[in-house]
């Protein structure tokens, strides 16, 4: 930059202090610590329903009863909101979609599809921070009270128009249109209210993660990853969903989250390398199962994007390369594909390669009638996975490789 331009810029900054980054207007909790609501009122009812839901989650066959993983997630939550640590419980649920939610009583569920979409602990802290933001601001209670009010208003409005039609004051078609419009508007305002909560939880989440020492820029990164994945999926957004969407629109959300990060930046004290290692140690053992669930969804565009991102992040490269081979094979309609074979072979170059990579190559070679190679890979598979559930079938394939001339 030239001296003149630098001077002009300095002058502009000096003349226009308003152009500097605005100070972050921090949020504070509305939930008292160690709080428990009285029975009988709206909040007491919410907590009772939460306890029942928590009981169901705790005993769900989808729950991953891994105490170490739950403790790891709870430690992050306690780092984000230390004053509320004793009120928080975490349950990991095996469901292959991106979701986490916190109930008013402090019980949080984290879905497995979320865990495979995080690149490191900071991104996980961003999502958990968002959820704890809802908790600390008692959004469930506000929403329940708002719903109570709006449901009453909606009923009154519908009844009022019904009365007008009965009295012959309004043409029925007009009344129907007005009533329908009013209902849509009321529903829209219900969800708009929720969008306000989502925006507030976004802000609170970034605030909490920055205070805990995480890189606040990772909050926007989570959302950007999701938008990229959606775009890669080739699936069209439902045009009607925006009206009912409970989250702010992606572009403005990215911009807002990025703005918060700039206002709060420069406080990162958590070692990113150690955090990544902690994250991988907690989640790593579950990855093959979580990835298998993703593959069962039969959404090759989305899955390929996800696994390529994980590969770029050097996340379990043996397993991820194998999964990319599986995605590639399925995308090619199960046909023999050089791209799939290349991924399987790449997987075998890493110590975490799953035995299934050998099986996949074995199947490929058997179809291509390259029987010696098929035999080698099937044999390697059975050596590495002697308890495999398909052992008898692999033995059958081995028989086929021997019978041929």
């Amino acid at each position: 930059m030239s001296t003149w331009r630098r001077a002009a810029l300095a002058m502009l900054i000096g003349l226009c202090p308003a152009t500097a980054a605005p100070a972050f207007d921090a949020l504070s909790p509305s939930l008292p610590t160690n709080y428990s609501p009285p029975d009988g009122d709206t909040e007491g009812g919410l907590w009772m329903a939460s306890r029942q839901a928590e009981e169901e989650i705790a005993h769900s066959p989808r729950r991953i009863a891994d105490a170490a993983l739950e403790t790891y997630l709870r430690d992050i939550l306690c780092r984000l909101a230390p004053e509320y640590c004793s009120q928080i419980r975490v349950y990991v649920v095996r469901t292959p979609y991106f979701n986490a939610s916190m109930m008013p009583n402090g019980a949080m569920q984290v879905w497995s599809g979320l865990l495979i979409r995080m690149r490191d602990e900071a991104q996980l802290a961003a999502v958990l921070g968002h959820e704890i933001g809802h908790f600390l601001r008692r959004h469930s209670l506000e929403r329940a009270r708002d719903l109570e009010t709006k449901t009453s208003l909606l009923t009154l409005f519908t009844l009022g128009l019904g009365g007008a039609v009965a009295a012959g004051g309004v043409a029925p078609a007009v009344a129907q249109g007005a009533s329908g419009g009013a209902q849509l508007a009321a529903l829209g305002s219900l969800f708009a209210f929720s969008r306000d909560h989502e925006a507030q939880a976004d802000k609170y989440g970034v605030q909490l993660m920055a205070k805990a020492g995480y890189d606040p820029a990772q909050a926007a990164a989570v959302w950007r990853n999701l938008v990229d994945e959606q775009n890669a999926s080739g699936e069209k957004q439902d045009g009607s969903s925006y009206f009912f969407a409970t989250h702010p629109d992606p572009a403005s959300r990215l911009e807002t989250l990025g703005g918060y990060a700039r206002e709060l930046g420069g406080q990162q004290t958590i070692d990113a390398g150690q955090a990544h290692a902690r994250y991988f140690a907690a989640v790593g053992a579950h990855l093959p199962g979580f990835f298998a669930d993703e593959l069962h969804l039969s959404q090759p565009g989305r899955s390929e994007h996800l696994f390529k991102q994980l590969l770029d992040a050097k996340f379990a490269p043996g397993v991820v390369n194998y999964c990319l081979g599986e995605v590639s094979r399925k995308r090619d309609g199960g046909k023999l594909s050089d791209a799939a074979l290349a991924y399987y072979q790449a997987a075998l170059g890493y110590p975490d390669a799953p035995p299934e990579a050998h099986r996949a190559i074995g199947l490929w070679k058997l179809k291509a009638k390259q029987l010696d190679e098929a035999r080698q890979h099937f044999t390697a598979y059975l050596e590495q996975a002697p308890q495999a559930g398909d052992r008898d079938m692999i033995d059958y394939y081995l028989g086929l490789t021997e019978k041929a001339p």
Partner: protein
Amino acid sequence: MSRVVFILALLLLTGCEQYQQVKSGRNEVGSFSVTTEAPIWNSVPSGHSPGSLPTWTVDGVTLNSLSFVSGIKDGSPLVTVHDKSKYPVFHSDMLPNEIAELVQSTVARLFTATISRTGELKPLTISGQPGFELEFEFVTDDEVIRRAFVGGTVKNGELQVVVFQAPRMHYFEKDFGHARDLIVSAKLP
């Protein structure tokens, strides 16, 4: 006259939508010819069966179902659904491992389920054809762990599969013997 035709048509349609007991002995379902020893099965109206597949049940489809997937051609999904693009498709050169995966992915999507145990895959001869048997478990939206037993083969390039599924607790074991005998002894043209 037209009123009589209307009533007859209505009766016919109503008849189509009823559960009907399956008689003992040999029965034709899709491409399969199967033998039932005991009169325990009921055929399910197509509108009530998973994936609109020809399906039998003992206690109702939420408690057990025996679905016949027959004559699936290269490039087709296993089920008849509105949005076929969401379902993986069969290819006539698939090996049993790939068909097992195809069946599990179809079940996962059809029942909005998570496959909780991949289970066992073994060779099985069906109607003189080399085929496979597969057992696995899945968890559905209602938080019930279900177990499935599948027998299948590829004949003349078409996939022929029978799927028995029921909650793992009590219901699977209760009728598994009947279902397995029926699947193993199934005949194909």
